[in-house]
């Protein structure tokens, strides 16, 4: 076989001729740019990449990516993507969903995709609101969110996307930010490199219905204190001059924010991030402002020995090898038969 030189792709090779129809200023534009950049860096041929989405603003994503794309129905993208990946495990399958699509109507499928560990990359654009249906509160909306359907404020507790993913048995869980172009391609590449289901929550600003909901995390004025960028093998430090860090309070069995050099806190007290540690991942995923910074980066990455799609393929292959009945004629004649003359 001839060795072909790998084609070098550029982000624009993954752009379609379709006019992008998100609201001007929507966080989705930044994510689209980040994904196109990532795909070019990964370098999988466009014909071997499939984007599957459900319903919602985020779900329009496939129309703007020059790969195969399937815009399906509300909440069911994980199930459709499961079929795509099982039918052809050689494809790179990406899922794009929003907080309502993934965690409300599609919550069941999200859970099962993660626990089955199907090798797809699952991106959730979390804007804590229903955009396409004009601004109702979503399952990730903060308590008290006023919306057309909750004029007096929402009264149900929100779900934590990363916490839910870990609880469902997800083995790759990460968090990014729409405008965090420096981090996002790296997170997405790590998600792609992970063999098994990769879950990436992307905090995304809805400029029309929930503008500024993440200002307390992403605004330049607070970002240093409000975000902690987690990296495997590095101490969990954040804040101005990286002065702050996370320490494990063994007695209370929880994390606490400390300042290195104050109250006898030394650098050795700060936890070193281990992305294969589930207990740590759960604590990091649960951190929320104002008491804690929000964890950004790869929170958990602990691949299983075998993914579901690999296991399915292996069972199918061994059935072919072991089968005693290999033709339809044989099948129809298996068991008791009798001749009538």
């Amino acid at each position, binding site marked *: 076989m001839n060795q072909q030189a790998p084609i070098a792709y550029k982000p624009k090779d993954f752009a379609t001729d379709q006019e992008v129809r998100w609201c001007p200023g929507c966080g989705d534009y930044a994510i689209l740019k980040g994904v196109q950049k990532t795909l070019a860096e990964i370098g999988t041929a466009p014909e071997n990449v499939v984007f599957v989405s459900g319903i919602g603003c985020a779900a329009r994503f496939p129309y703007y990516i020059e790969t195969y794309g399937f815009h399906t129905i509300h909440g069911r993208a994980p*199930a459709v993507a*499961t079929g795509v990946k099982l039918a052809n495990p050689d494809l790179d399958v990406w899922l794009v969903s929003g907080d309502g699509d993934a965690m409300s109507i599609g919550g069941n499928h999200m859970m099962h995709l993660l626990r089955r560990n199907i090798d797809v990359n699952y991106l959730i654009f979390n804007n804590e609101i229903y955009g396409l249906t004009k601004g109702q509160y979503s399952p990730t909306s903060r308590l008290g969110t006023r919306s057309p359907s909750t004029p007096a404020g929402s009264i149900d507790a929100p779900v934590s996307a990363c916490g839910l993913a870990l609880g469902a048995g997800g083995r790759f869980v990460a968090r990014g930010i729409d405008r965090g172009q420096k981090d996002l391609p790296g997170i997405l590449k790590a998600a792609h490199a992970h063999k098994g289901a990769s879950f990436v929550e992307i905090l995304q600003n809805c400029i029309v219905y929930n503008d500024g909901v993440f200002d307390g995390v992403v605004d330049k004025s607070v970002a240093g204190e409000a975000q902690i960028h987690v990296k495997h093998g590095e101490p969990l430090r954040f804040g101005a001059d990286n002065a702050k860090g996370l320490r494990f309070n063994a007695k209370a069995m929880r994390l606490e924010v400390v300042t290195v050099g104050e109250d006898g806190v030394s650098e050795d007290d700060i936890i070193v991030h281990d992305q294969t540690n589930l207990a740590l991942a759960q604590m990091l995923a649960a951190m929320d402002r104002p008491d804690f910074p929000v964890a950004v980066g790869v929170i958990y990455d602990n691949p299983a020995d075998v993914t579901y799609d690999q296991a399915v393929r292996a069972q199918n292959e061994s059935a072919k090898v072991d089968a005693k009945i290999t033709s339809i004629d044989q099948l129809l004649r298996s068991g008791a038969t009798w001749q009538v003359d």
Partner: protein
Amino acid sequence: MTNTAEIIEPSEGHREVLESVVVRFAGDSGDGMQLTGSQFTQSTALAGNDLATFPDFPAEIRAPTGTTFGVSAFQINFGARRVMTAGDQPDVLVAMNSAALKVNIGNLRRGGLIILDSGTFKERDLRKAGYDANPLEDGTLDPYQVVEIDVSKMVVESVREFGLGTRDALRCKNMWLLGLVYWLYGRDRQPSIDWLNAKFKSKPEVAAANVAALNAGHAYGETVELPGEILGYTVGPAKIDSGLYRNVAGAEALAWGLAAGTQLAELPMFFGSYPITPASSLLHTLARLKQFGITTFQAEDEIAAVCAAIGASYAGQIGVTSSSGPGIALKTEAIGLAIMVELPLVIVNSQRAGPSTGMPTKTEQSDLYQAVYGRNADSPLVVLAANGPGDCFHTAIEAVRLATKFMTPVMLLTDGYIANASEPWMIPDFSSFEKFPVTQHTETEGFEPYNRDAETLARVWAVPGTPGLQHRVGGIEKDFTSGHISYDSENHQRMTDVRHAKIDGVANFIPEQTVDQGEAGGKLAIIGWGSTYGPISRAVSNMREQGRDVAHIHLRHIWPLPRNLGDLLSSYDTVICPEMNNGQLSTVLRAEYLIDVKPLTKVEGMPFKIREIEAAIEAALDA
């Protein structure tokens, strides 16, 4: 240890010769009635009789022992002539306990034979079965021939030497009674003995006990004089077409048909399903056929099952999903997506009594509207119906053929009766089946995802992994050729029209409707679909033997209807449509052809009786 039948020469000379018999085995859910029935079926088939069976079991897996709601039954009709149904009324009832007698006696032919275990008529048994008085003593059984045997006691005696506890010993009761029924009809026990030895290979004492019970029951018939001078019966072999036969249940034949269809299409198959009665057996059968390029996937719910199948179709395999009415309802939105993106998909509906949960183990044909019309918007698809267990094989192949040829979902209707019932089936020669290899699109020149075949209107199937054909599809209305999102009003009209025309055009690629019995044109036609085939066929042939002018038409293609059907139906003075619903096909035919089709409906969770259809024929012709 080998367990063999003691060879006792059947006393053929004394046996009464019968043309056909209906036997019903009934007992507790845990008594092994379905196993007993299937063993008797096998031996009956080997004896050369034609036959039809009806497994009739409750939804409860193991209801409390001895209660009426835990009674499970297996009915078999076998004869020296063609057998079309499991029989209107049992001639023989084998009752394993008092509850089984209570549930089943109502339908027994007056004068019929009851074989019962008198050991289960103690006061406590009767109370559990809901009897106020002992039916063995109060004259309830006077209209019947009754053989009372304390089977429980005899079984325990006959297996004593194997050291089983009483509880385990009593589990051999079904084999004791099977042995007696084998004697009654002069059946060979050896195949069942071989089967028991194989089944309990790892538990030789259980195998030996069961064989001993079977032999003991048989010997009892030989040696003890049964009341009413019953000396056994002979049912001669039926005249059936020559060929190689086997017994087949509908779910099994359907699975094999799907496997065969994928071979003919030369494509792998993906089967996504979620357990539901009575459709699960399809999943179980296909899960063991992976060597045929079949991937099976037990999804988290009905919706995921169909969506995964659609995903697999998108990626180039034949997506198949299966359920029963309530599950199909859940899949409906996704089926709409498959219609919109025009991908092949086979949806099997093993119908059951409804609405809602209804009666999961009872049969009905009430999802025809759901299949033909039951989606939001104008969303046509192809609907097929199998008419019996063996026909499931052929109908499944047809479903795969049409789904791939027309890039469309195809709904295949069976029902609980077809799925579970078995019948002798002449094994077809698979090499004679015409292949329909599917070609997926690879040409980049001029490619648009909604380019259509001029003849079939099917769009091209371009699957991920094909260089240069990257494109996007989805549930939003699309431009007529490019598939891009389009809200253009004229485009929507055009797309709606083409989706409609494509399904209508399927009629040009299916056979014209034939008349199953009788002639085109005449006084009366009985039109049916699905599992009513047996009773309609027998009723019409009985009536024709009496010189009545009646024909039988049976549909496999429900939507679109065969192109000549309107003219055919118009050629009769009267058309009657028996169906196990409130008149659904009748409505469809009336709407399509403005013909006054008269419904004959029944929703009792049971197939039609031959007599019921005969009565309708007589009434129509005598009116």
